[in-house]
C-alpha cells in the first residue's frame, strides 16, 4: 500500500521535473528561434555631406557608399541619388531609378527636366511626370538634416503621380 503510494508520488515528481526541464530548454530554444521577430534593425541612415552644399533649384547626382550591417557581416554597396534643394532650404532626394522599369535617368540641363534614356519618360524637377510611360512620379528616399548634415535612407518610398 505504502509502496504504491510512493510509486504514484514518484511518477508525479518525474512528470513535474520533466516538464520543468522541457520548459527551460524549450523557452531558450523558442527565444532563439523567434529572435528575428524582435531583433532591432539598423535604420541605415547614410550621411552624404553638408546640407548647405547643394545649389537650390538644380538637382545634383550624389554618389555614396552604403555601409550596412547584415546580421553579423558588414557590407558595402555603392549607390547614388538625385538631390534637389529648394530656396527655402528643403531638400528632396530621389531614387536614381526610373519608376517605369528602373533605368537610370539623368537631368537634362537645357530642358530642365529628368529624362529616362530607355523609354523617354520625362519628369519635372520636383519628380512629377511630364510625359512618357512612367506610372507615377519619381520615387523618393527619406531624408533629414541634422547639424547641417544631410542624412538619407536609401530605400524608395513611392512617389505620387
Amino acid at each position, binding site marked *: 500500500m505504502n509502496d504504491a503510494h510512493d510509486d504514484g508520488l514518484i511518477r508525479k515528481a518525474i512528470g513535474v521535473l520533466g516538464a520543468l526541464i522541457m520548459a527551460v530548454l524549450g*523557452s*531558450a*530554444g523558442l527565444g*532563439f*528561434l*523567434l529572435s528575428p521577430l524582435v*531583433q532591432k534593425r539598423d535604420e541605415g541612415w547614410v550621411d552624404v555631406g553638408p546640407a548647405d552644399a547643394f545649389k537650390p533649384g538644380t538637382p545634383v547626382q550624389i554618389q555614396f557608399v552604403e555601409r550596412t550591417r547584415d546580421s*553579423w*557581416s558588414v557590407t558595402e554597396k555603392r549607390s547614388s541619388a538625385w538631390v534637389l534643394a529648394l530656396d527655402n532650404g528643403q531638400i528632396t532626394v530621389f531614387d536614381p531609378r526610373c519608376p517605369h522599369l528602373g533605368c537610370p535617368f539623368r537631368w537634362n540641363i537645357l530642358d530642365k527636366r529628368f529624362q529616362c534614356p530607355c523609354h523617354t519618360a520625362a519628369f519635372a524637377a520636383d519628380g512629377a511626370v511630364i510625359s512618357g510611360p512612367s506610372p507615377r512620379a519619381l520615387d523618393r528616399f527619406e531624408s533629414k538634416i541634422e547639424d547641417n548634415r544631410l542624412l538619407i535612407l536609401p530605400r524608395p518610398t513611392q512617389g505620387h503621380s
Partner: protein
Amino acid sequence: MREWLKSRTGFEAIWKALFERAIPEAKGPVAWLYVLGSASLFVFIVQFTTGCLLAMSYAPTPDHAYDSVRFISDQVLAGRLVRGLHHWGATFMVVLVALHFSRVYFMGAYKFPREATWITGVCLLLLVLGFSFTGYLLPWDQKAYWATAVGTNIAAQAPVIGPSVAAVLKGGEEMGAATLTRFYAFHVLVLPALTALLIACHLFLVIWHGITEPPAREEDGAGDRRL
C-alpha cells in the same frame, strides 16, 4: 487511445523492455552513482539542442566566425543563454563522462559479460574529447586559435606520420579557412553521427546485459574465490 497505439505501434512491448526492466537494487548513496550515465546522455541532449540553435547563426569562416559568435551573444534573443549552456554543457560533459568512467572502472563493471559495453564506452569518451577539441576552435578568438595551434602541433610530434596528420587536421600547412570548415564539419556532422550511433550501441548493450549490481567484498560471500 492506449489500445489503438498498442495495436498499431507495439509501443507497449518497447516500453516494457526499456522501462520496466528490473534493476538490481543498489542501497544508500551508492545508488546515486548510477545516475552518471543517464546524466551524460541528458547533457548530450542539451548539447545537441543548443548546438542546432547555435548553428543557425554561426558562419564557419575566419572572416565571419568571430562576428557571428558575438552576434549570437549580443543580438540574438536568449543567445547568451544558449551559448552559455553549450559552453558549460561541454565542461559538464567532460566531468560527467569522467566520473561515469571512474565509477565503471572502480566497480569493475567492465568485466564479463560487459566487455563490449566498455569498449563502446571508451569510444564515446574519445568522441567527447573530439567534440571539445573541435568545438574549441569555432569562436575563432585568441584562445580558440592558439589552443588549436598547440593541439595540432602536438599531433605533428608523432614520429614519421605526425606532420602529415597535422596537415590533414588543419586542411593545409597553415591554420586558416580550411581548418575552420574542417573542424566545423567534424563538430556538427561527423562526430554527432558517430556519437548517436555509439550511444545506441552502448544503451542497447546496457539494457541487454542489465546494469551491474554494486560489487560486494569477497568476505561477504558474494564473490567467487575459485579463480
